[in-house]
Protein backbone atom coordinates (compact mmCIF):
# COMPACT_ATOMS: atom_id res chain seq x y z
CA UNK A 1 0.00 0.00 0.00
CA UNK A 2 1.15 3.55 -0.63
CA UNK A 3 -0.13 7.10 -0.55
CA UNK A 4 0.00 9.17 -3.74
CA UNK A 5 1.19 12.73 -3.08
CA UNK A 6 0.92 15.65 -5.49
CA UNK A 7 3.52 18.38 -6.02
CA UNK A 8 3.38 21.70 -7.81
CA UNK A 9 5.65 24.53 -8.92
CA UNK A 10 8.91 24.69 -6.91
CA UNK A 11 8.17 21.42 -5.08
CA UNK A 12 7.63 19.60 -8.38
CA UNK A 13 11.09 20.90 -9.35
CA UNK A 14 12.47 19.83 -5.96
CA UNK A 15 11.29 16.23 -6.33
CA UNK A 16 11.60 16.11 -10.11
CA UNK A 17 8.03 14.85 -10.19
CA UNK A 18 4.43 15.98 -9.88
CA UNK A 19 3.32 12.79 -8.12
CA UNK A 20 5.13 10.35 -5.88
CA UNK A 21 3.93 7.16 -4.21
CA UNK A 22 4.89 7.32 -0.55
CA UNK A 23 5.33 3.86 0.97
CA UNK A 24 2.94 4.17 3.91
CA UNK A 25 -0.19 2.31 4.87
CA UNK A 26 -3.21 4.64 5.23
CA UNK A 27 -4.70 5.65 7.57
CA UNK A 28 -1.58 7.64 8.46
CA UNK A 29 -0.92 11.20 9.58
CA UNK A 30 0.26 14.13 7.52
CA UNK A 31 3.36 14.32 9.73
CA UNK A 32 4.20 10.72 8.80
CA UNK A 33 3.78 11.45 5.10
CA UNK A 34 6.00 14.54 5.30
CA UNK A 35 8.58 12.58 7.26
CA UNK A 36 8.59 9.83 4.62
CA UNK A 37 8.95 12.42 1.86
CA UNK A 38 12.16 13.70 3.43
CA UNK A 39 13.80 10.39 2.47
CA UNK A 40 13.13 10.99 -1.23
CA UNK A 41 15.79 12.78 -3.32
CA UNK A 42 15.11 16.51 -2.89
CA UNK A 43 12.95 15.89 0.18
CA UNK A 44 15.65 17.10 2.53
CA UNK A 45 14.95 20.62 1.23
CA UNK A 46 11.28 20.62 2.26
CA UNK A 47 10.56 23.23 4.97
CA UNK A 48 9.92 22.08 8.54
CA UNK A 49 6.16 22.32 8.21
CA UNK A 50 5.17 22.48 4.56
CA UNK A 51 1.62 23.50 3.65
CA UNK A 52 -0.62 20.51 3.01
CA UNK A 53 -4.03 20.07 1.43
CA UNK A 54 -6.22 16.99 1.68
CA UNK A 55 -9.04 16.64 -0.82
CA UNK A 56 -8.52 20.24 -2.01
CA UNK A 57 -8.87 21.70 1.51
CA UNK A 58 -6.05 23.23 3.60
CA UNK A 59 -5.04 20.90 6.41
CA UNK A 60 -3.07 22.78 9.06
CA UNK A 61 -3.13 19.98 11.65
CA UNK A 62 -0.04 17.80 11.07
CA UNK A 63 -1.70 15.03 13.07
CA UNK A 64 -4.73 14.92 10.75
CA UNK A 65 -5.27 11.42 9.41
CA UNK A 66 -5.21 10.58 5.72
CA UNK A 67 -7.53 7.82 4.53
CA UNK A 68 -7.16 5.59 1.47
CA UNK A 69 -8.20 7.45 -1.71
CA UNK A 70 -7.68 10.88 -0.12
CA UNK A 71 -5.94 13.36 -2.42
CA UNK A 72 -2.85 14.68 -0.62
CA UNK A 73 -0.87 17.65 -1.92
CA UNK A 74 2.25 19.27 -0.48
CA UNK A 75 1.99 22.93 -1.40
CA UNK A 76 4.72 25.56 -1.79
CA UNK A 77 4.03 29.13 -0.62
CA UNK A 78 1.26 30.45 -2.85
CA UNK A 79 1.86 33.43 -5.13
CA UNK A 80 -1.26 34.04 -7.16
CA UNK A 81 -2.57 37.39 -8.30
Amino acid at each position, binding site marked *: MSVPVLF*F*ASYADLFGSRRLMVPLEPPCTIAEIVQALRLFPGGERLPGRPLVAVN*QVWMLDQQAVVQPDDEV*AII*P*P*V*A*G*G
Partner: protein
Amino acid sequence: MTRLPLFRRSPVADFAVEPRVARRVDLVHKQIDIVDLFQSVVSPAAGAVSLFIGTVRDVNDGRAVSGIDYEAYHSMAQAELERIVEEVETGTEGLSIAVVHRLGTLAVGEISVAIAAAHPHRAAAVKASQLVIEQLKQRVPIWKQEHYIDGDRKWIDPTSPLR
Protein backbone atom coordinates in the same frame (compact mmCIF):
# COMPACT_ATOMS: atom_id res chain seq x y z
CA MET B 1 -15.43 36.85 -27.87
CA THR B 2 -14.61 35.39 -24.50
CA ARG B 3 -17.60 34.48 -22.38
CA LEU B 4 -17.66 33.57 -18.74
CA PRO B 5 -19.36 30.28 -18.00
CA LEU B 6 -22.13 32.24 -16.30
CA PHE B 7 -23.10 33.70 -19.62
CA ARG B 8 -22.20 30.78 -21.82
CA ARG B 9 -24.89 30.37 -24.41
CA SER B 10 -26.59 27.17 -25.36
CA PRO B 11 -25.82 26.15 -28.94
CA VAL B 12 -29.55 25.74 -29.53
CA ALA B 13 -31.12 28.54 -27.54
CA ASP B 14 -30.21 32.14 -26.91
CA PHE B 15 -30.41 32.13 -23.15
CA ALA B 16 -27.99 31.45 -20.34
CA VAL B 17 -28.01 27.71 -19.72
CA GLU B 18 -26.48 27.86 -16.27
CA PRO B 19 -28.02 29.59 -13.28
CA ARG B 20 -26.35 32.87 -12.39
CA VAL B 21 -25.00 31.60 -9.09
CA ALA B 22 -23.62 28.33 -10.45
CA ARG B 23 -20.12 29.47 -11.42
CA ARG B 24 -18.54 32.81 -10.61
CA VAL B 25 -14.94 31.68 -10.64
CA ASP B 26 -12.78 30.68 -13.56
CA LEU B 27 -9.18 29.73 -14.30
CA VAL B 28 -8.34 30.36 -17.94
CA HIS B 29 -5.45 29.97 -20.35
CA LYS B 30 -6.66 32.71 -22.67
CA GLN B 31 -6.75 36.48 -22.30
CA ILE B 32 -9.14 37.74 -19.62
CA ASP B 33 -12.05 39.75 -20.98
CA ILE B 34 -12.81 42.36 -18.31
CA VAL B 35 -15.97 43.54 -20.07
CA ASP B 36 -17.40 40.04 -19.84
CA LEU B 37 -16.36 39.89 -16.19
CA PHE B 38 -18.11 43.20 -15.53
CA GLN B 39 -21.24 42.01 -17.34
CA SER B 40 -21.35 38.85 -15.24
CA VAL B 41 -21.92 40.82 -12.02
CA VAL B 42 -23.68 44.02 -13.07
CA SER B 43 -27.42 44.23 -12.52
CA PRO B 44 -30.11 46.91 -12.15
CA ALA B 45 -29.61 46.72 -8.36
CA ALA B 46 -25.91 47.62 -8.63
CA GLY B 47 -25.01 51.22 -7.97
CA ALA B 48 -21.31 50.41 -8.19
CA VAL B 49 -19.04 47.79 -9.69
CA SER B 50 -15.48 47.65 -8.39
CA LEU B 51 -12.99 46.05 -10.79
CA PHE B 52 -9.59 44.92 -9.57
CA ILE B 53 -7.17 44.05 -12.34
CA GLY B 54 -3.77 42.54 -11.68
CA THR B 55 -1.16 42.87 -14.41
CA VAL B 56 2.36 41.59 -15.02
CA ARG B 57 4.92 44.19 -13.92
CA ASP B 58 8.21 44.71 -15.73
CA VAL B 59 10.40 44.87 -12.61
CA ASN B 60 10.38 42.82 -9.40
CA ASP B 61 12.90 43.22 -6.60
CA GLY B 62 15.02 45.30 -8.90
CA ARG B 63 15.22 42.66 -11.65
CA ALA B 64 13.89 43.25 -15.14
CA VAL B 65 11.03 40.80 -15.80
CA SER B 66 10.21 39.61 -19.29
CA GLY B 67 7.19 37.45 -18.39
CA ILE B 68 5.58 35.15 -15.84
CA ASP B 69 4.42 31.52 -15.90
CA TYR B 70 1.37 30.91 -13.73
CA GLU B 71 0.65 27.40 -12.48
CA ALA B 72 -2.27 26.19 -10.36
CA TYR B 73 -3.42 23.19 -8.39
CA HIS B 74 -6.42 23.53 -10.60
CA SER B 75 -9.15 21.71 -8.71
CA MET B 76 -8.21 23.22 -5.36
CA ALA B 77 -7.63 26.73 -6.74
CA GLN B 78 -11.11 26.62 -8.23
CA ALA B 79 -12.62 25.33 -4.98
CA GLU B 80 -10.73 27.81 -2.78
CA LEU B 81 -11.70 30.76 -4.97
CA GLU B 82 -15.32 29.65 -4.80
CA ARG B 83 -15.04 29.47 -1.01
CA ILE B 84 -13.59 33.01 -0.89
CA VAL B 85 -16.36 34.42 -3.09
CA GLU B 86 -18.93 32.63 -0.98
CA GLU B 87 -17.45 33.98 2.27
CA VAL B 88 -17.22 37.57 1.06
CA GLU B 89 -20.71 37.52 -0.44
CA THR B 90 -22.12 36.00 2.74
CA GLY B 91 -20.51 38.77 4.80
CA THR B 92 -22.35 41.59 3.00
CA GLU B 93 -25.83 41.35 1.63
CA GLY B 94 -26.33 42.46 -1.95
CA LEU B 95 -22.85 41.62 -3.27
CA SER B 96 -22.27 39.85 -6.57
CA ILE B 97 -18.66 38.80 -7.20
CA ALA B 98 -16.82 37.16 -10.08
CA VAL B 99 -13.14 36.22 -10.35
CA VAL B 100 -10.98 35.07 -13.25
CA HIS B 101 -7.33 34.06 -12.91
CA ARG B 102 -5.11 33.50 -15.90
CA LEU B 103 -2.70 30.55 -16.11
CA GLY B 104 0.19 29.76 -18.42
CA THR B 105 2.77 32.16 -19.83
CA LEU B 106 2.01 35.88 -19.66
CA ALA B 107 3.93 38.81 -21.08
CA VAL B 108 4.57 42.08 -19.25
CA GLY B 109 1.39 44.17 -19.12
CA GLU B 110 -1.00 41.26 -19.54
CA ILE B 111 -3.85 40.73 -17.08
CA SER B 112 -3.18 37.92 -14.62
CA VAL B 113 -6.26 38.27 -12.45
CA ALA B 114 -9.50 40.22 -12.55
CA ILE B 115 -12.14 40.60 -9.86
CA ALA B 116 -15.51 42.28 -10.25
CA ALA B 117 -17.71 43.10 -7.27
CA ALA B 118 -21.13 44.69 -7.67
CA HIS B 119 -23.18 46.19 -4.87
CA PRO B 120 -25.88 48.84 -4.54
CA HIS B 121 -23.26 51.10 -2.88
CA ARG B 122 -19.64 51.86 -3.76
CA ALA B 123 -18.00 51.32 -0.36
CA ALA B 124 -19.14 47.70 -0.17
CA ALA B 125 -18.15 47.05 -3.80
CA VAL B 126 -14.62 48.46 -3.33
CA LYS B 127 -14.14 46.66 -0.02
CA ALA B 128 -15.26 43.34 -1.50
CA SER B 129 -12.87 43.46 -4.45
CA GLN B 130 -10.01 44.25 -2.07
CA LEU B 131 -10.98 41.44 0.30
CA VAL B 132 -11.08 38.94 -2.55
CA ILE B 133 -7.62 39.83 -3.91
CA GLU B 134 -6.07 39.77 -0.42
CA GLN B 135 -7.61 36.38 0.34
CA LEU B 136 -6.65 35.06 -3.10
CA LYS B 137 -3.01 35.96 -2.50
CA GLN B 138 -3.00 34.21 0.87
CA ARG B 139 -5.06 31.09 0.21
CA VAL B 140 -5.36 30.09 -3.42
CA PRO B 141 -2.82 27.51 -4.65
CA ILE B 142 -1.47 29.37 -7.65
CA TRP B 143 2.23 30.02 -8.24
CA LYS B 144 4.26 32.25 -10.52
CA GLN B 145 7.66 31.72 -12.00
CA GLU B 146 9.22 34.97 -13.13
CA HIS B 147 11.33 35.08 -16.28
CA TYR B 148 14.07 37.69 -16.27
CA ILE B 149 15.57 39.35 -19.29
CA ASP B 150 18.94 37.75 -18.48
CA GLY B 151 17.32 34.33 -19.09
CA ASP B 152 17.08 33.32 -15.42
CA ARG B 153 13.81 32.03 -13.92
CA LYS B 154 12.60 31.93 -10.34
CA TRP B 155 9.54 30.67 -8.46
CA ILE B 156 8.22 33.53 -6.36
CA ASP B 157 7.94 32.92 -2.62
CA PRO B 158 6.07 35.80 -0.97
CA THR B 159 6.91 34.33 2.47
CA SER B 160 10.67 34.37 1.92
CA PRO B 161 12.50 36.71 4.31
CA LEU B 162 14.83 37.56 1.42
CA ARG B 163 12.03 39.44 -0.31
